[in-house]
């Protein structure tokens, strides 16, 4: 029995240790890293490099969601030169939903889309024609960053002892999404009776595509008009201890190498509040688009 007690303690300790492990890591894999969203690529030999006139070909696309967000609204559209090719079925545009990475699905889901295309007849005197096939994906996405920040209303550092934390900036790399929060600067702004915690949140597009307005996803993957505001628009929401912060500008437009948004707790904290560490939940909502392309050479089957 005496031997069982230490063994039981060791087992309990192991359980505790395991239970306290970071939820984001599963079997050593942190799914909240990476700068990719939906990654598209052509299937092997699809489209082929060459096709004879009148022949059919397939434009096959594999789209993998390598980010942490589940795509609920998205489109894949294939663009072909309609003077030389035509879709056998459909119009080249499909809606998609793709589940992202999670601790249970560390690679993210992938979908397969195949567009059946037929090459038209070439002009009589032409032997070959090189044409461009492009596939564009447009989808909504979200970045979720959770930096641990120190909130310390004692801006004059009166109480120098027993502070659980000190104010400091938080550097971040990526959060498993193409748009990343790269840095959070923590500031305590004095007001009349309170101290207003403020956070300067730096945002950067680290993916290979372009940020679009999440509300204009359909338009971007269509032929309709776009406004400049439809590009590089990110909606930012920051929550500090279950309280939404006031973020400006809103929405944020990514136009420089490093763009930032200031989020503050307008209600403020009493100056007597003791410093504490807490999670700052940052949500970036946006749309994202990227294009891949390939050349297809249409050849005359029989030379005259």
């Amino acid at each position, binding site marked *: 029995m005496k031997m069982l007690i230490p063994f039981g303690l060791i087992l309990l300790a192991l359980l505790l240790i395991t239970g306290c492990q970071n939820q984001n890591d599963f079997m050593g894999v942190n799914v909240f890293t990476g700068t990719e969203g939906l990654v598209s690529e052509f299937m092997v030999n699809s489209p082929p490099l060459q096709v004879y006139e009148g022949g059919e070909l397939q434009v096959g696309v594999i789209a993998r969601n390598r980010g942490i967000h589940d795509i609920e609204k998205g489109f894949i559209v294939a663009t072909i030169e309609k003077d030389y090719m035509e879709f056998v079925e459909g119009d080249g545009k499909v809606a998609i939903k793709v589940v992202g990475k999670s601790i249970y699905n560390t690679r993210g889901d992938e979908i397969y889309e195949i567009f059946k295309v037929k090459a038209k007849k070439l*002009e*009589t*005197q032409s032997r070959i024609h090189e044409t*461009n096939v492009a596939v564009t994906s447009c989808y909504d996405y979200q970045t979720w960053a959770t930096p641990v920040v120190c909130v310390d209303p004692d801006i004059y550092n009166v109480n120098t002892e027993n502070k659980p934390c000190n104010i400091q900036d938080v550097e971040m790399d990526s959060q498993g999404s193409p748009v990343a929060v790269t840095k959070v600067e923590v500031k305590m702004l004095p007001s009349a009776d309170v101290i207003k915690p403020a956070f300067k949140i730096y945002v950067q597009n680290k993916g290979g595509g372009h940020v679009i307005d999440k509300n204009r996803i359909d338009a971007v993957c*269509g032929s309709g008009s776009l*406004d400049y505001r439809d*590009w590089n628009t990110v909606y930012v929401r920051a929550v500090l201890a279950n309280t939404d912060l006031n973020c400006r500008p809103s929405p944020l437009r990514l136009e420089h190498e490093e763009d930032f948004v200031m989020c503050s707790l307008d209600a403020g904290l009493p100056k007597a509040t003791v410093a504490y560490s807490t999670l700052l939940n940052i949500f970036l909502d946006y749309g994202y688009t990227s294009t891949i392309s390939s050349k297809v050479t249409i050849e005359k089957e029989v030379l005259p």
Partner: protein
Amino acid sequence: MGKTRLNGEFFDKELMKILRNQGGPSVEHRTLDAKESTVDDKELELAKEEKGILDEEKELLKNAKKGSGKKGGGSDDETEIPAKRLDTFRIFMFLVIIGCAGGVLVAGNSIVQTTLVICAGILFIAEPYLAPFLKDKLKILGKPETVITIFKVILLIGIIFIGDQGTQVIVLGLAAGVFLLLPSAPGLFRRIKNHAQKAPDWKDSGGSMGSLLFKFAIAIAVDVADFFIGRIPIVGTGFDIIQTFIGYKLWGGTGLISGWEIIDITDQLDGFVPSLTILGFFSIVQHGFKPKPKEGKQGININLRQPGSVLVKIIVVIFFIAILLVGGLAAMPAHLYGGEGVLARASRTVSTSVVKSAAWIKDNNPITLIANWIDKRIAIASGSFYEGTVEENKDLPLGVYLKDLKPADPQFWEDEEIIVWATLEAMTIEKPVNITVSCTADGVFADNITPSRKFNISSYEQQLLECKFNKETVLNKVKNGAKNVRFNANYNFETMSYLKTYFMDTERMRSMRRQNLNPLDEFGITDKYPIAIFTNGPLKIGMETLRELPIGVPSDLVSQREVVTIGVTLENRWKGRITKINSLEIQLPDSLDINHCDHPFTAAKKAEEAGYNKYELDFTKLDARKKAKLENITTYQTFRCWIDVKDRTSLLGKDPISTKYIRLTADYDYQSYETTTIYIKKIEKGSGTTGGAGSLYQKGCCAKESTKCTKLQSDCTGTSFWSAEMYCTASDSAKNGQCTSCTDICNTQTQCPSSSVKLVDYGWCCESSKCETGSLSSCPIPAVSEQFDVTAGSNCLTDERISQILTAANSPAKDAYAAFNRYAIQYGIRSDVALAFFNKESTYGTAGVAVETKSIGNVKYSGRCIGKKMTVNGVDWCGHDTWEQGIQDWFDLIKNIYVGQTFKVKTVETIVPIYCPAGPPDYCDVQGYIKNIRDYVSGYQTP
């Protein structure tokens, strides 16, 4: 040792000091027999490195030898040949000979002959080293000088007589001979060289390196001009004289050596030798890079005789060998000629060279080429020339090709038929091609072309053509001398072209650009600046959109429909011309529409392909000037169209970016040609088996008594001979081709029958001893090199022939055919020329403004006009109620304004530049116009 032994002689060291003071620190010569030399080897090496003194030393030493009364040693064993160094003058002459060899080869002579010329050059340069070799190794052959001289004579004979003849060769041989023999004539050589050296040299004039470079630039420019202008006979000789003067100014006495080019009276060889540049180089070699340094200052004197200069010399030699190789590759191996004297050969070669040069210059006139090039650059710079690239079928020989022109013999007698062969190769993919082949010798059409004059090709075909000129045609029309034989292939052809364009919603495009996104990059489009791609053939269709791509399509089409302008250039790609554009079709996506073009395009009823609208050039709405510009295109023509968006939704579809194609198809007539040169030998009077020079014989094959002659040389027997001077009378010729009395008559073509008959083909009546006016003999068609006098004849064609031509052309003036000869006789102007102008100006009244004005020459209104003022397209024309009046008006214009007091010109070559000037307001292709007139007139003689 108080004395140094040189060449078997002893000189005082005092003399050596003098020589040193004159030319350098060390003066040493060695005898060819090293054993006899008493000069220290090290000193000899030093002597080799000295510059600019050795030749003078040699002369001094030779003079000294003469003074001592000894010549070249006393015995054979002591025979000492002066060691001639590889001096610059010798190298220069070697390069000249090499350059000439290139010219010989290019001029059409044989490789054997060229090799002999090169051998002469090598012998010349190697002689100083050959002599000791012969002396040491081949004593058995005799004295070295004798052996070398024998070699030279053999080479000289080979160059002149074994080669392919001609003045070029004679001149070259003589020139080579002079230089080969120069070492044997030291006095002449020395005098030339001394004179050159006494003359002021370039460095004496002072100046800087900058001025030296400037001089080199002038030298190069003059040499380049010599290559082009200097090869025009006679003009080239004048140019050579000027060049010699420039050479003297540039390089002083050394520059006078460029005068050697004057010797080449053919002007075909010296153009290949950049004499001024070479002389400049050697002048620098001789005198250093720096101008004469001022006293007290020592400039850096780069001596090209130093080892480093060898590289420069090698480069120069390689340069000339390259010229030779290029010339050789371009040259046609010549054929052997038989049995004629040197002078006759020279004469023939000169005339052949002249004709060949004239033809070459005509096709490659550097001034025209440069003018066209500049014109094209300006057009490109000003945005009025649009590019295109040939489609991937470029390897398919689409079109019609004339290849391998080859006369059956390089020279013919004037009483034998001429045969020239050519290979016709034709390939088409879609539309059948109708080919009409013609063959001319100096504008005279061939009598027969086998297997046919016309071909219809639906895919691919190759035909061996044989063009034959009958004996009579050769004798009476083509005549003797050097002649250009030209094969023409007229055919219809079709070229298609397409231009890729990208369209995108304007706001979308702007929004992307504002975000620094290139729309084309975003969709993986690499062909960002597409130019037209056209199918292979003689016509290039260039097209470009005159806006940056993608083209924005506005959502508001009411305020802005016109979105894009396209520029189109039709350019002649091949040797030939686009004689006529038959149709021009633009196909646009059905979502687009032509707003307007600077040529009238109208919508066709039905497009060939679904989704496209077709627009055709409306020739009926095309004014005469623009229509004329679409004929006989030898360079290019450009026009623009402004395109509207008709259906935005259809144009953009559902894609973010839409790719559309604009297509253009041209159906046209093209004329390809190739030329070759033949030589027709004249049959000397009295050169038959009997009779002597200066005797008068009749035309035909005459017996010794010259009272009986037949028409053909083939009738000659062993006792008769051929004479081409006189003709049998008509009555005589009826007697089985035997004459009893020979008197000249007007008919030089056909033996007349005994009774009067009208020869429709040639348009005159021939009675037994009388010809009516208006015979063909009074309407000659001069050679291209001669002026075409429009007053030399009047009614040159029969009324029937004129009627036939007008009817065939479906001319509205066909009922007025008799007016041509009537007014031709009245005004003394050739009717065939009038008809040719009628064809040129309005295709016999079927096109352009002439349809309305009834003016056969599109004559503008003036107080002289026989008719009335008629305004069409804003221009006042001389209009007529009847075609007869229009015909009379043209004759009146030419007679009273051109030939008469106003302009005082009477040849086609002088009339046309005024009639249809190259400048404003007509911007005519004057040379093309003249050529057309000549071609048409020649064509009228062939039914």
